[in-house]
């Protein structure tokens, strides 16, 4: 183990930084190939009916923010969902792969961003993270690379996965 401290002496005050923390792990195309290597994808995005929205909320216990669902079908009959969760301080874009039988076969985080300012609630600010392609990489603050001390809980993402399973059940399982 080798450690070089930022400051050499004991009991000194450290200077804090308040910049946000953001990482882009994968573009949408990369996430598709990570979960379903070699597959081809056809956009199968859909809008849920009010009845389906009600079913999803009841079945998953997680509120649906929009009836518009971003989903692709693979050439092998699997499904690739793109979704985002917006917590009090975090914004996470993630993808869920379901096989042809509707079982989860992959969950990948595309973008993780935490902020203690107001911008996380701003739709324009959030819009910069969606629909990213390999040609338009995100500009991020790279000063803070590794954080110790609990990162935000992944509870919202796990709730999102349950929601996607319910969406599949009500809107896609019969196809």
């Amino acid at each position, binding site marked *: *183990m*080798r*450690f*070089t401290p930022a400051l050499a002496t004991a009991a*000194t005050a450290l200077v804090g930084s308040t910049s946000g923390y953001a990482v882009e*792990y*994968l573009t949408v195309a990369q996430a598709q190939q990570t979960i379903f290597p070699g597959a081809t994808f056809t956009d199968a995005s859909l809008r849920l009916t009010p009845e389906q929205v009600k079913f999803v909320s009841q079945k998953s216990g997680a509120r649906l923010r929009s009836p518009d669902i971003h989903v692709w079908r693979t050439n092998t009959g699997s499904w690739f969902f793109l979704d985002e969760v917006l917590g009090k301080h975090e914004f996470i874009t993630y993808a869920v792969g379901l096989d042809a039988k509707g079982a989860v076969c992959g969950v990948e985080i595309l973008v993780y961003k935490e902020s*203690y300012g107001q911008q996380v609630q701003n739709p324009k600010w959030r819009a910069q993270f969606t629909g990213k392609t390999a040609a338009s990489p995100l500009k991020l603050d790279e000063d803070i690379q590794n954080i110790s*001390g609990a990162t935000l809980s*992944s509870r919202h993402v796990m709730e999102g996965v349950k929601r996607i399973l319910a969406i599949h059940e009500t809107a896609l399982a019969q196809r």
Partner: protein
Amino acid sequence: MKPPLPNAEARLRRARPLLGTVVEIQVSGLAPAQLERAISRAFAAITHVQMVMSFHDPASDLSRINRLAARRAVRVDAATWTVLRHARALTRVSEGRFDPSIAPILQRWGLLPGVPHPRQPETNGSAICLLPGRRVRFLAPLTLDLGGIAKGYAVDRAVAVLRRAGVPAGLVNAGGDLRVFGNHAAPVHVRHPTKPGLFFPLGELRDGALATSALTYSGKIQQGTATGALVDPRNGTACGQNLSITVLARSAWLADALTKVVAVDPAAARPILARYGARAVILDTQGRADWLDTPLRHVA
């Protein structure tokens, strides 16, 4: 500009929701396809640890021993066995300052589900009996929670899998329990103990592990006093309030578990840290960093 070589070495950074947090893996030094395969195996290893040591899943090893081991010996998975061996050894060395049998206290505080057993007295990690054939028996009714050690162990497992796959350098970070290996230097920031949007630069870590425990997220307010996942197992009181405790050690399970020993009793922790070749730093709300060892000679 030269075009990239077809088999060029790559750097990959991936994250998945696991262990109740966001687990990140960074790797470099092999062709992209090999790194992808290695990362996917490392995440599978973490998923396995999560599955066998989950407090919430009734089918996990942990739930099985909590249910049955007071009555009969229960055989467990190799991963669970290793974590229990580490936990028992540290309980002994720390004279009970680390103790996995604190689950009833966390249940009483509402930090773990379920109602504590009415006849279960104080914590008693020394009643965990490890028998040949990876079998576990409790000599008294106990409820274990491996939350204070299993997350670090999962990081160690992931690193072992990456190395076995031939990855020369990388990092695994499970919500602040992180380990770096190979020729990878990781600059690390630590969160302010009570203002999670504020980060302090701690230093640069190579070939080792680091874990931080603080009440930032796990703390709850109960009856006017803050209680959190940092418990003194000897008397069931909350400890480490408004402090962030970071331990540097050779492995992540050790760093993870030693943060609890330091939280309980910083002064008594010094010889225990020294015994394991570990170091600790306590950050207070003023941003003061107090190293629990002699100041280093390095100059940043």
